[in-house]
C-alpha cells in the first residue's frame, strides 16, 4: 500500500504539537545544520532578508499557494489535504517541509543500502572459464536488481511523501553532481552517491562539494581515475568549475589546468562489485599551483575551499536553487540576495530553500503554474492526485521513456528542465501513459490499433492468407513495437487496478451536472488552476463521453460500472492536455 500525503487530521495534530511545544520533531534523526544557521522558530531572521512578519503578510496564502509549494518543494498534494495547510499558514508548511524527519524504520535518510555480491573476488578468480561466465551472468542480474531497488525505492519514497523536500532537493542535486550508471557500471557506486547527496541535500553545499570530490561514482564518471601527475585529465576539473560551482566565465583555461593538477591522484580502489575513494600520493602532483589566484601545494580539498571562497560560487549555487524551484530565470538582485545568505550561513542550502519558500516573490504570477513538470513530477504527481496505486517500476520506466532516466542522464549537464521535456513524441506519450494509468490504453487497445493499421497498410496482403492464430501472432509482434506496450505489460503483470477516486468524489459531492463534475475532477487531477476555456471545452467533452456510454447527467453520482468508464476516459483526456503538464 502506498501512503500518500499526510491526512488533514495528521497535519492538524502535528501543528498542534508544534505550536504548543515548539520543539523539533526530528527525534533521533541526525541534524546537519551548520552552526551559523539562524534560528527561525521565533520569527526573527537576521541578515538582508525581509523579516518574517512582512513576508507572511505579503504572501497571497490560499489554495493555489499551498498547491504551488507542494508542487515545487514536494511532488504534489492530494486535493483534500490542501485546506488544512491553508489554515495552518506558510510558516507551518515550510517548517513541516524543512524539518528533519523522524527516523522511520532503519535509517530513513539512507534507505538504499547496497548488498554485496554473494561471491568473493577469490571465488571468481579460482573459477574456470565456464564458471566465470556463469558468475558474470549472475553478477549482471545482481546489478540489475540492486539498481532497480535504488530507482524504485526512491520513487516509492516520493509517492509516500515521507520526506518530500529532501527527495525534491536530492533530485535537483542528482542533476547537478550527476553521474550515469552507463559509465560507472557498478550500481554500488550510484547508490553511495545517491546516499551522500541525500544526506546533504538540505545541508551544507560546502560539505556536499567536498564529499563529491571524493565520490567514487563521480570520479569514475569524469575520468579522474586517469588523472595523474604528468598525464593530467582535465575532465573533472573543468566540470567542477563550469557545472558544479562557478559557472562559465568565472575561471580561465589556466585555472582548469591547475585545478586538474590539484586533483591528480584522486581515484578509486575497486574491489569486485564496489569501489572506495583512494588518494594515491604517488600519482599526485604535489608541486605548487595557482588556482584562481590562490597559490599553494593544493590537493582536492584545497580546490574545494578555493572554489567555495569565490564570489561566483555562492551566486552559482543560489541561482541554481532558486531557478530550479521557480522554473524561471532569476534576476541578479535575487541571486545576490540569496548568495549573501549562503555566505553568511556557510552555504546552508536548507536555510536558503526555507527563505525562498517564504519569499513572496516565489508566489508571483509569472511563477505559479508556469513550470513544465518533469516526467517524474508528472508521474508521481498524477499518482498522488489520482490516488493511483502504481508500481514504482512503472514510474521508473515511464519516466525513462519520457526522457528522465534516473541515474542515467543524457550527459554531464544532467537534464534540461522546463519546456525541454516536451517534444511531440513525449507529449503524446505522456497522454498514452495517462491512458495506461486509468486503464483506457492497454494491450487490447494496441492490438486493435495494430490490426487496423495492418489492414490498411499492405502488410496483411504482403503476408498472404493467414489463419486466425497467425494473424493474432502477427498483431502481437506489431503490438510490441508500440512504445507504451512495455508499460502496459508491467501493469498487467501486477494486476493493476485503476483508481476509483473520480467516482467516489463525484458520489460524495452528489455532483449531478457536467459543469460540477468538470470543476470537481479538474481540481483533483490538475496541479494548477485550469483556464475557463479549458473547463468549457471539457464540459462539452464530458457530455460526449457520457452520451457514448449512455450515462445521464443526473446519474453520474450513482454507483455504476459504466460511470467508472466515463470518468476514466475523462481523466485520460484531462491528463493528456497541456494543462496537466504544468505544475
Amino acid at each position, binding site marked *: 500500500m502506498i501512503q500518500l500525503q499526510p491526512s488533514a487530521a495528521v497535519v492538524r495534530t502535528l501543528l498542534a504539537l508544534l505550536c504548543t511545544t515548539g520543539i523539533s520533531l526530528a527525534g533521533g534523526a541526525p541534524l546537519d545544520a551548520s552552526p551559523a544557521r539562524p534560528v527561525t522558530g521565533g520569527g526573527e531572521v537576521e541578515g538582508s532578508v525581509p523579516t518574517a512578519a512582512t513576508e507572511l503578510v505579503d504572501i497571497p496564502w490560499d489554495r493555489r499557494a499551498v498547491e504551488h509549494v507542494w508542487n515545487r518543494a514536494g511532488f504534489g498534494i492530494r486535493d483534500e489535504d490542501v485546506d488544512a495547510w491553508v489554515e495552518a499558514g506558510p510558516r507551518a508548511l515550510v517548517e513541516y517541509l524543512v524539518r528533519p524527519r523522524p527516523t522511520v524504520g532503519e535509517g530513513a535518510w539512507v534507505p538504499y543500502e547496497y548488498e554485496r555480491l554473494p561471491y568473493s573476488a577469490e571465488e571468481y578468480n579460482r573459477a574456470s572459464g565456464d564458471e566465470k561466465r556463469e558468475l558474470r551472468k549472475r553478477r549482471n542480474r545482481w546489478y540489475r536488481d540492486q539498481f532497480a531497488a535504488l530507482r524504485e525505492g526512491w520513487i516509492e519514497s516520493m509517492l509516500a511523501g515521507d520526506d518530500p523536500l529532501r527527495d525534491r532537493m536530492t533530485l535537483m542535486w542528482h542533476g547537478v553532481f550527476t553521474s550515469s550508471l552507463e559509465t560507472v557500471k557498478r550500481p554500488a557506486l550510484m547508490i553511495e552517491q545517491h546516499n551522500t547527496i541525500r544526506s546533504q541535500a538540505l545541508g551544507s553545499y560546502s560539505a556536499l562539494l567536498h564529499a563529491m570530490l571524493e565520490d567514487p561514482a563521480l570520479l569514475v564518471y569524469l575520468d579522474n581515475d586517469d588523472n595523474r601527475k604528468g598525464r593530467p585529465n582535465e575532465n573533472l576539473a573543468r566540470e567542477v568549475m563550469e557545472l558544479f560551482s562557478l559557472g562559465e566565465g568565472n575561471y580561465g583555461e589556466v585555472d582548469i589546468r591547475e585545478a586538474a593538477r590539484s586533483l591528480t591522484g584522486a581515484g578509486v580502489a575497486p574491489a569486485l562489485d564496489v569501489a572506495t575513494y583512494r588518494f594515491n600520493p604517488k600519482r599526485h602532483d604535489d608541486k605548487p599551483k595557482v588556482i584562481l589566484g590562490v597559490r599553494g601545494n593544493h590537493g582536492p580539498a584545497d580546490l574545494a575551499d578555493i572554489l567555495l571562497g569565490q564570489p561566483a560560487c555562492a551566486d552559482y549555487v543560489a541561482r541554481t536553487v532558486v531557478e530550479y524551484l521557480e522554473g524561471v530565470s532569476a534576476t541578479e538582485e535575487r541571486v545576490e540576495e540569496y548568495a549573501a545568505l549562503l555566505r553568511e550561513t556557510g552555504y546552508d542550502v536548507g536555510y536558503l530553500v526555507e527563505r525562498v519558500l517564504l519569499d513572496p516573490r516565489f508566489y508571483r504570477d509569472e511563477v505559479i503554474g508556469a513550470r513544465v513538470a518533469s516526467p517524474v513530477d508528472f508521474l508521481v504527481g498524477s499518482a498522488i492526485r489520482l490516488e493511483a496505486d502504481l508500481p514504482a517500476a512503472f514510474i521508473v520506466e515511464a519516466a525513462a521513456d519520457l526522457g528522465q532516466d534516473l541515474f542515467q542522464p543524457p550527459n554531464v549537464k544532467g537534464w534540461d528542465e522546463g519546456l525541454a521535456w516536451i517534444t511531440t513524441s513525449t507529449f503524446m506519450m505522456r497522454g498514452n501513459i495517462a491512458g495506461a494509468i486509468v486503464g483506457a490504453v492497454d494491450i487490447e487497445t494496441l492490438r486493435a490499433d495494430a490490426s487496423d493499421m495492418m489492414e490498411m497498410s499492405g502488410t496483411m496482403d504482403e503476408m498472404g492468407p493467414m489463419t486466425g492464430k497467425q494473424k493474432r501472432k502477427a498483431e502481437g509482434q506489431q503490438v510490441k513495437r508500440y512504445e507504451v506496450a512495455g508499460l502496459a505489460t508491467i501493469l498487467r503483470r501486477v494486476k493493476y487496478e485503476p483508481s476509483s477516486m473520480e467516482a467516489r468524489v463525484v458520489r460524495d459531492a452528489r455532483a449531478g451536472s457536467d459543469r460540477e463534475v468538470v470543476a470537481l475532477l479538474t481540481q483533483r487531477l490538475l496541479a494548477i488552476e485550469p483556464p475557463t476555456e479549458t473547463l468549457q471545452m471539457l464540459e462539452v467533452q464530458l457530455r460526449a463521453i457520457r452520451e457514448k456510454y449512455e450515462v445521464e447527467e443526473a446519474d453520474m453520482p450513482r454507483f455504476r460500472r459504466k460511470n467508472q468508464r466515463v470518468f476514466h476516459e475523462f481523466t485520460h483526456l484531462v491528463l*493528456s492536455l497541456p494543462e496537466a503538464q504544468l505544475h
Partner: protein
Amino acid sequence: MNLPKPDRRSFLRAAAASAAGFGLLPEVLAGGGRVQGLPGEGGKNLVLVQLSGGNDGLATVVPYGDDELRRIRRSTAHKASELLKIDDYRGLNPGLGALRGRFDQGQVAIVEGCGYPEAVRSHFKSYEVWHTAHRAGRISGDGWIGRLAASRWADEPRPDRVVHFGGKAPYSLFSRKQPPVALASPTGYRWFGDEEAYARGGAAICEHEMERDPRHVGRDGALDKLRATLDDARESSGRIRGAAAIYRTSVEYPKTRLSAELRDVAALVNARSGTQIFSVSDNGYDTHSKQRQAHDRKMGELGDALGAFLEDLDRSEAGRDTVVLVFSEFGRRVAENGSSGHDHGKAGPMFLLGHSVKGGLYGAHPSLTELDAGDLAFTTDFRSVYATLIRGLFGADPVAVLGAEYPPLPLI
C-alpha cells in the same frame, strides 16, 4: 478496456485524409512499380544505420589478398573462395550480396579504415565520440545530427525533421533546439483515444480570444507553447501514421526487426513526408566469441535488409535522393582472443549507399602489420564522412556543425 469501434475508424479516416492532405493518394503508392511525380518538398535524405557492439571490419570488407590475415586469424578469417570479391585484395562478406551487385552499379561507397585519434575501446565512450564528433564526447554538447538540424533548419523547424525508429534515440540526434521524434514504430506515434477531443486541447481552444487574467500570466505563457506542441504532435502524427498506413510495396522484406524498421523508413521517404534524417540501429555485433558464425549471420541479415530497402528506395525520386550511412562505434582487434572471437578494437569501414553516392573505394585499407596497440590504425577520420554529408546532402557548413575542419571526400 477497449476503445469503442467508431473512434478507431474515424481516426483511420483522419489519418488517411491527412496523408492525402500533403498530396498523397493511396493509389499512388499502391502499385509495386515506380512511384512517380510525387509532389512535396524536394531535398536529400539521410538514413543512419548503426551497427551496435563494434562491427568487425576485417570480416566485412575482407583483405583476402593479404597473407597475414589467415596467419593471424586462423579460425575467424574467411577463405578467398567464400568472398564476394571486389578486386584482388578485398572481398565483401558473403552475406552482403545485395551490396556487391550495387557496388558495380556505382551505388556503394566504402570508406576504409575509419576511426579517430586516441581511440577508446569502451562501447559507450566510443559511441559518444561518433555521436558528437568530438573526442570529448557528450561534454561537448548536442549530437552531430542535432547540431546539423539546429543549424540547417534554424528558421524552418519541423517536429518530424529527424526521426529515430526503435525506441530511445541515439545521442547523435540529441538536440535542445530541434529534438528528434523517437518512435518505437510509426504506428505507435499517436495519442490513443478520441483524437478529435484531443485536438480541442490544442491552440484551437483559443480560437475566440479569451480575456487574459494577469493572475495567470505565467501559466498562460506556458500553455500557449504546449498547445502549439499538441498541434505539431497531431499534425506530424497524421503525416507519419498516414504515410505508414497507406504504404504499399511489392518489395519483399525479410522478417527481421531491422527490416521492419527500414520498411517504415521507406514508407516515409517515398511519401516525402518531410522527414529528412532517419536513424535505425541493430545490435549483435559484439562478437567476443565464436565470431565466424555469429558475425556471418548478422552480415546476412544486414545485407538482406539493406538489399530490400534499397530496392524499395529505387522506386521513387525521393528514394533515389536518399543516402544510407552504415557505421559502428569501433572495429575489432586484429588477433583472435581465446574464444575464437575478437575483442574491442579501433578502425573499421563505413558504407554509403544510394543513387546519390559516387560509388567506389575511399580512404585506404589499414595495414595488418603496422598496428596501433594490436588494432588497425585508422586511415580516415570518420568526421570527414560527416563533413561530406553535411555539405553534400544538406548544403550546411561542416565547420559550424562539427566545430573543426575535416577534409571532405569526393563521394557525393
